[in-house]
């Protein structure tokens, strides 16, 4: 059947258009480590964020395909769009994953709940490429369970043509009636609450229920001003000018900018969230050795650069950061000087009672 469809598609071939922009072009990969086919025939199940790996569109590297070529291991690649969904799939026990790429606070929770296995970094020859500042972070102080994949900050994207350039550099723009029906906010509780918590000057990891109530009230108040709550749907909306102002991850701004050059970006003065997404191996993974091989492959300079260019997030990999050919080399949005940044806060795993409290509060905000 596949072949038949391929034939139908091939018949439809007429002309092709190449896109220009940031995309790592390559002829042959140069690999630092050795890969062999000793594990040929195994299937590795990878569970990652959507749009979070170079997939071979427009002549870029297809990371999974290259990995399959070098190792003979088949990659079963699945995506999620929030840490919570990833968690529910993992904890539900319906599916086994060999590789997952959650964010910091979720890793902290998974470690607490004993859902991860330790990663033997001595078997990952490219591990030395990870920049020291991303080692021994709070969620995994001994670097036993995670290998950093991407780092990022949250900021606000706006369309200069629609909003004008005199925009207040604050989270308050999402509440500003000037942008009524043109503003977006996150469609996940943690990030959405953060936008309100920053305005209220709260600690994003507060254990005080009253703080969460206050943030929820602020979100309810701002709801009428919003066009919609979005996750990756933001791409279409910002690129076409359907919406004019929205908070999102800095890396995604750069990808959107490729399509719409009217877009601008700032880090709000109240402060913002910083995050690290790291590669982990769940406890019930079936292919530990293959998973290590995959992690090593993701750290390869050529692969990491291809990914960094495709995804647009900042890389913790020194081979990428110091590569002058990398299209975001020293990009000031991705790699800002600390002096230019407002105060940043990591999310931490919050104890279950408070977590349940704000996750339920979020449904009240949505129903308001």
């Amino acid at each position, binding site marked *: *059947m*596949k072949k038949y*469809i*391929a034939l*139908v*598609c*091939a018949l*439809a*071939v*007429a*002309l*092709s*258009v190449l*896109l220009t922009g940031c995309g790592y072009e390559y002829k042959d990969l140069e690999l630092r480590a050795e890969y062999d086919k000793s594990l040929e025939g195994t299937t590795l*199940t990878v569970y990652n964020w*959507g*749009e979070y790996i170079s997939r*071979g*569109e427009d002549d870029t590297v297809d990371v999974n395909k290259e990995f399959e070529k070098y190792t003979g291991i088949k990659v*079963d*690649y*699945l*995506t999620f*769009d929030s840490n919570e969904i990833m968690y529910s799939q993992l904890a*539900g*026990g*319906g*599916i*086994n994953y060999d590789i997952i790429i959650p964010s910091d606070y979720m890793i902290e929770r998974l470690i607490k709940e004993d859902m991860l296995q330790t990663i033997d970094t001595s078997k990952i020859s490219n591990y030395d490429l990870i920049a020291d500042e991303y080692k021994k972070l709070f969620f995994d102080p001994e670097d036993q369970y995670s290998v950093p994949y991407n780092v990022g900050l949250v900021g606000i994207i706006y369309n200069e043509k629609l909003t004008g350039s005199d925009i207040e550099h604050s989270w308050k723009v999402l509440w500003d009636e000037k942008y009524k029906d043109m503003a977006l906010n996150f469609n996940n509780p943690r990030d959405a609450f953060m936008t309100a918590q920053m305005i209220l000057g709260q600690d994003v990891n507060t254990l005080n229920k009253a703080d969460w109530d206050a943030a929820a009230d602020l979100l309810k108040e701002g709801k009428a001003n919003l066009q919609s709550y979005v*996750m*990756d*749907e933001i*791409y*279409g909306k910002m*690129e*076409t000018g*359907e919406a004019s102002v929205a908070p999102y991850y800095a890396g995604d701004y750069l990808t959107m900018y490729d*399509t719409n050059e009217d877009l601008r970006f700032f880090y709000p003065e109240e402060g913002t969230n910083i995050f690290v997404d790291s590669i982990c191996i769940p406890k*019930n993974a*079936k292919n530990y050795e293959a998973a290590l091989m995959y992690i090593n492959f993701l750290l390869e300079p050529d692969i990491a650069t291809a990914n960094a260019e495709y995804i647009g997030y900042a890389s913790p990999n020194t081979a990428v950061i110091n590569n002058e050919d990398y299209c975001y080399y020293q990009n000031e949005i991705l790699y800002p000087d600390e002096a230019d940044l407002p105060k940043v806060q990591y999310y931490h795993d919050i104890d279950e009672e408070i977590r349940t409290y704000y996750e339920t509060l979020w449904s009240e905000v949505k129903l308001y």
Partner: protein
Amino acid sequence: MKLLSRLYIALIILFLYAPVAVMIVFSFNSSSSVWVMGGFSTRWYEGLVKNTVMLSALEHTLIIALLSAVISTVLGTAAAVGITAIRNRIAKKAVMSVTQIPMMNADIVTGISLMLLFIFFGKLIGLDESLGFATVLIAHITFNLPYVILSVIPRLRQTDAHLSEAAMDLGCTPVKAFFKVILPSISTGIVTGFIMAFTLSLDDFVISYFTCGHYQTLPIVIYTMTKKSVTPDTYALSTLIFITVFVLLILYNILQSKSEKKRTEIRRV
């Protein structure tokens, strides 16, 4: 009045097909947007050949649809025959009521209850992976069955029971009598049931969403895509499916009217 009714029909058709038209037009978009038309291009159709995620999802969908339709047709036809033979009214009523549950219930409830069952039993027998091909197949068979049963039963009722009795009097075994006498007369019901089962399975999203694990079917992959920016390749695949269905239905229609003609001819003889 006639003109008005034609106009009304045309408007409803326009309503039904406007989004389909949008989909077809944007599948030829040269830019990667499904909102703003850039220019004409067939690059998304070319891209499909390489899109292994979408193609394998399509393969999964077709496998599940075919298997679940076949199994539920066999199981459902047997069930229909058995149910009509149940004499006890209360027992019959009970079986029929249970049969209607998946049809009447909201998909999300069916999906969740099945997922809970699979996870519950998966844990009970110590499976470390309970969702996948088998569970999505079971789920599809389960929601297909009532449609098969309810399209076969009316046909069975119309069948003259004396026919099969006569066949058995003439020395047929009950099984043979079934295949020789009953089956031909309920075949339209079976075919209708099969087609309905296949269609429902092909289009099902909600129940698969909760039961498929990583055996992702096309609707699941499309759902993941509509969560980010949909690119025209999804539209291109849907357009191809649309055209296939269109052609198949026209063929089916022609065949049907041919066989109808034959039947009226036979009747005349």
